[in-house]
């Protein structure tokens, strides 16, 4: 295998592994802030119980995010030197601001959050929880500004092949940035919601009938039910934005080869890149044109208009369907769940099991979504400015093969350890006694939940 392919595989592996954890922590930080606020406002210790369980999950996920993130900062130099040579003047400061305004904030105040509860006044502990949540969001802001600039670059000029900044405002607030930012934050919200719901359901299944898992479960179900329609709406806007700026990506997402008026919405197909056509199509006539142009006979550009300049079709096409399918499933499950929660104090056992099976649905949808947008940008690293193949390192392929194998092994090991530890934590939490001090009567619990 050549160094280009290996470097791409290694980068894809690293970033796929990495994104799993920020996707959880970005929103879990806000959940923790909410739990902490509820704990401050109510006399009942149940919210602190919830906080203390989920802050551990946060710490573990955060640690995995940090260590895999450190790896990323090295990879730019080791495998993609051309990236910094050509667009470093843009990428550099954005990454720099991420480190300065987000990483230190998160890492430092996390220490107070985890260990400071008996050492600092309660307000400072609450503030630290808020600061950590803000830090994770700031981190998302900068890295998504950079990623969006790579998708829809503007605010720069090219002199001798090198990009120079002209307007930082235009660079940061480039056309796809607002959509990508909200799309990702909502994805994180949904990922954390289904994680909380799923692990809480697992604790209930283990026979843990304390108040904390039930209350956390309910909170997460409602959150998901509110976020998913928002996500579908924002996702649609993001798609329209992509159609405007990266039509070849949308053509790959929809599997449209020839420019068509009244293009069908393909529910399923097997794109064949050699013959430049689809097989086994199941389609809704005029569907794609209607969704994307809001006109059943709207004109959509096909892939053949971009020959040699469009992404590989099959992975984009399939990933898009996985993402959308997962979103629909989330809608269904969270709404059914909420309906039950509104009427009764617990969910039927089949629905509990459904939630357990959906624990990591956010990961699947988020990864699929990122594959759509990142593979969809190929063959460019920075749309129209820098091709991925131009940025790759010249080091021997064997070195990259060695590191790729090592990373793969360690990531598989860590992922298994992470999942196993989450299960162990649920079991441990289930064994803990319910808080039973006499002053916390049923009345107080009702207040806490209302």
């Amino acid at each position, binding site marked *: 295998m050549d160094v280009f392919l290996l470097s791409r595989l290694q980068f894809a592996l690293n970033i796929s592994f990495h994104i799993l954890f920020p996707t959880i922590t970005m929103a879990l930080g806000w959940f923790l802030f909410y739990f902490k606020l509820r704990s401050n406002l109510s006399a009942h210790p149940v919210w602190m119980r919830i906080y203390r369980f989920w802050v551990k999950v946060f710490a573990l996920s955060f*640690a995995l995010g940090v260590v895999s993130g450190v790896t990323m900062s090295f990879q*730019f130099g080791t495998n993609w030197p051309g990236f910094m040579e050509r667009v470093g003047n843009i990428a*550099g400061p954005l*990454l720099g601001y991420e480190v300065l305004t987000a990483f230190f904030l998160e*890492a*430092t105040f996390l220490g107070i959050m985890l260990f400071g509860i008996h050492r600092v006044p309660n307000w400072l502990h609450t503030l630290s929880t808020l600061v950590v949540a803000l830090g994770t969001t700031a981190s998302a802001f900068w890295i998504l500004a950079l990623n969006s600039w790579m998708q829809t670059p503007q605010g720069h000029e090219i002199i001798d092949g090198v990009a120079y900044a002209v307007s930082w405002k235009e660079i940061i607030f480039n056309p796809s940035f607002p959509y990508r930012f909200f799309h990702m934050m909502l994805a994180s919200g949904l990922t954390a919601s289904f994680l909380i719901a799923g692990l809480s359901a697992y604790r209930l299944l283990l026979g843990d009938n304390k108040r904390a898992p039930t209350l956390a479960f309910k909170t997460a179900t409602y959150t998901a039910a509110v976020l998913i329609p928002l996500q579908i709406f924002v996702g649609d806007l993001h798609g329209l934005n992509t159609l405007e700026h990266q039509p070849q990506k949308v053509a790959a997402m929809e599997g449209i080869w020839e420019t068509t008026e009244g293009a069908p919405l393909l529910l399923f197909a097997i794109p064949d890149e050699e013959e430049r056509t689809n097989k086994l199509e199941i389609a809704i006539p005029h569907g794609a044109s209607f969704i994307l142009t809001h006109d059943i006979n709207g004109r959509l550009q096909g892939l053949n208009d971009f020959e040699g300049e469009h992404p590989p079709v099959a992975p984009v096409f399939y990933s898009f369907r996985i993402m959308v399918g997962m979103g629909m499933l989330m809608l269904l499950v969270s709404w059914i769940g909420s309906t039950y929660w509104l009427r009764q104090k617990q969910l039927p056992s089949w629905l509990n099991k459904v939630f357990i099976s959906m624990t990591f649905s956010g990961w699947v949808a988020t990864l699929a979504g990122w594959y759509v947008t990142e593979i969809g940008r190929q063959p460019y690293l920075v749309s129209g400015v820098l091709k991925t193949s131009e940025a790759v390192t010249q080091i021997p392929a064997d070195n990259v093969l060695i590191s790729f194998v090592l990373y793969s092994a360690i990531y598989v090991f860590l992922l298994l350890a992470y999942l196993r530890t989450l299960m162990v934590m649920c079991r441990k939490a289930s064994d803990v006694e319910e808080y039973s001090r006499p002053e916390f009567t049923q009345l107080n619990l009702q207040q806490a939940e209302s």
Partner: protein
Amino acid sequence: MFIDNLTTESLGNIYIGLLGLAILVYAILDGYDLGIGVLLPIQDEGHNDKMIASIGPYWDANETWLVLAVGILLIAFPAAHSELLQSLYLPATVMLLGLILRGVSFDFRAKVIEHQKQQWDLTFKLGSLITTLAQGYMLGIYVTGLRSDIWAQGFATLSAVGVTAAYVFIGACWLVAKTTGDLRTKAIVWAKYGVLALVIGIAAVSLANLTLHENVRQLWLSAPTGLVLSAIPVLAFTLLGIGYLVLQRLPEVEGAGDKLPFFIAALVFTLCFSAFALSYYPYVIPGQMTISETLSNSDSLKFLLIGAVFVVPCILLYTVMVYRIFSGKLESLRYH
């Protein structure tokens, strides 16, 4: 604003200064927590929880200084970043794997059932050791100007051991400051061995260093620069001597003096670092690339500097705040 009027030269100096600061702070802060990882006994005799608790609130932020250092190198000196990391591809990969292992072990061990805890402790120790050895090795190769011959390898091996010893020393000093009783007594012994290892290490690395680059030798061996520069090792050895005496006297009383060894260690780190920095300035890669040859576009650097002027003091401020919150001896620092 004054930033707009900066010359390219002063921008280069500011960024190399920031890079130096980040590396030095990293070596001191992550140094002690890596050192404690290396020191962690394989057979837990009841100290492991305390040793790890002593670094609990800090390690995440400590490691962030490495991200900052690599970030500044990437942003301000991109050509040096890619040259360095492509030359050091495999050791850098090994270091990252070490960092990954130790970083996650720390969190896993607190959450798993008892018999698995020991496995994670071992991973923590090994990960820390791999990291310190790899960092020392890379430092060695870097100082040779990225050579790969047998002499450079030998020097890098020496440096790997030296850096590990230095981290172990500062780690032991941290434990002296943070712990009580048996563990403190043990840490004092570790720290004393650390002083001895460091004296040998600094002497060996300094001598080897003189043989590497002609201009460095001239800088050190000719007056008046040599006189000023040789004050640095003299001062470092004096401090280590004082440190040893302090450690000798410590077992009798637990108290305010317990913090002294750590500050001495931090000072010794600063001195060693200054010796390196003064020897190689204005090179970003010794003998290969100078600041001006690799500095990136001024406008972008100015844009980042505007933020850095405000944010870096804040980072230092809240770092100090956190150290104050958790200052003093370890009581029952619980991971809740």
